[in-house]
């Protein structure tokens, strides 16, 4: 007999930790690959995705059942990734002084390395490079919509921005991406 996700969540809320395994197993892959898209490092993606599951578990009593667990969880994961990238950038700014007018700075060499992370395909590598050059907000929305295949309403629940903003942010992100990918269009 298998339980619905809502039943599993409410068991976890009553402190039955063993049921949490089912939720973790269901979402571990998409959590890991989404985090990898955001931070571009295998180790960090693994660590951040696991940390998100731990934080979600610790605050699961505050989860409201009218939401979907996945959306709520991805909100936690997105916030973790963004604050991780911020810390990283701050650390880099301390080291190098070349940061100009708030532009997105390239991340360290071991990050966003297509040869380490991606299957061999020229267009994928180019897209990956273009994505890594987008700002965090633009990258996250592209990953949520086109990589994870979420609807505007789901993105609204994860990022807590109105559907109109989802559309306009996607528009900005895609037109930048299109310019960077002009050779492949």
């Amino acid at each position, binding site marked *: 007999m298998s339980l619905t996700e809502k039943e599993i969540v409410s068991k976890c809320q009553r402190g039955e*930790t063993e049921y949490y395994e089912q939720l973790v*197993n269901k979402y571990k892959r998409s959590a890991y*690959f989404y985090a990898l898209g955001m931070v571009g490092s295998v180790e960090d993606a693994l660590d951040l995705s696991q*940390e998100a599951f731990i934080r979600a578990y610790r605050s699961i009593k505050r989860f409201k059942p009218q939401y979907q667990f996945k959306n709520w969880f991805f909100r936690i994961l997105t916030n973790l990734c963004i604050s991780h990238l911020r810390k990283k950038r701050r650390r880099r700014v301390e080291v190098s002084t070349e940061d100009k007018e708030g532009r997105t700075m390239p991340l360290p060499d071991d990050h966003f390395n297509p040869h380490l992370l991606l299957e061999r395909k020229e267009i994928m590598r180019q897209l990956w490079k273009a994505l890594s050059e987008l700002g965090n907000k633009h990258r996250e929305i592209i990953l949520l919509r086109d990589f994870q295949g979420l609807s505007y309403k789901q993105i609204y629940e994860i990022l807590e921005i109105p559907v109109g903003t989802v559309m306009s942010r996607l528009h900005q992100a895609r037109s930048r991406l299109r310019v960077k*990918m002009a050779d*492949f269009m």
Partner: protein
Amino acid sequence: MGCEEFELLLNGYIDGELKDPDLKRVEKHLAGCPPCQKLVRDYQRLKEVTAEMKFKNPPQEIWDSYWQRVFHRITRGVGWVFFLVGAVAVAGFAVYEFATDPAVEALQKLIVFAIFVGLGLLLISVIWERVKASKTDKYKEIER
């Protein structure tokens, strides 16, 4: 009507998120506007490539041990709480026994008492730091 007005809606259009009357307006404009048709094709191609983007799958052991690692980190936190409560209780009991033992001199009692007060203060300051750190951390998450 210019194309700029439609550019935003084109994104909703290719995502299948538009409803009438916007949907009808976009379809009507698209039918007579080759530049916007090209834009739609480009965006659709970008979408396809992004959807097909495949990261290398990590070794199977990573997935096999994934839950165990999460579980250990969850229970480790609980373990620390139990350990701290237990340690404080044991220390409190020992101090009480020691303080009420008539065979020990007052000066010795005072010295041991000072050590325990010192340890207690250190413990409180460490916990205080952790609480403060987690608060600012949470704040950062909300800030965005």
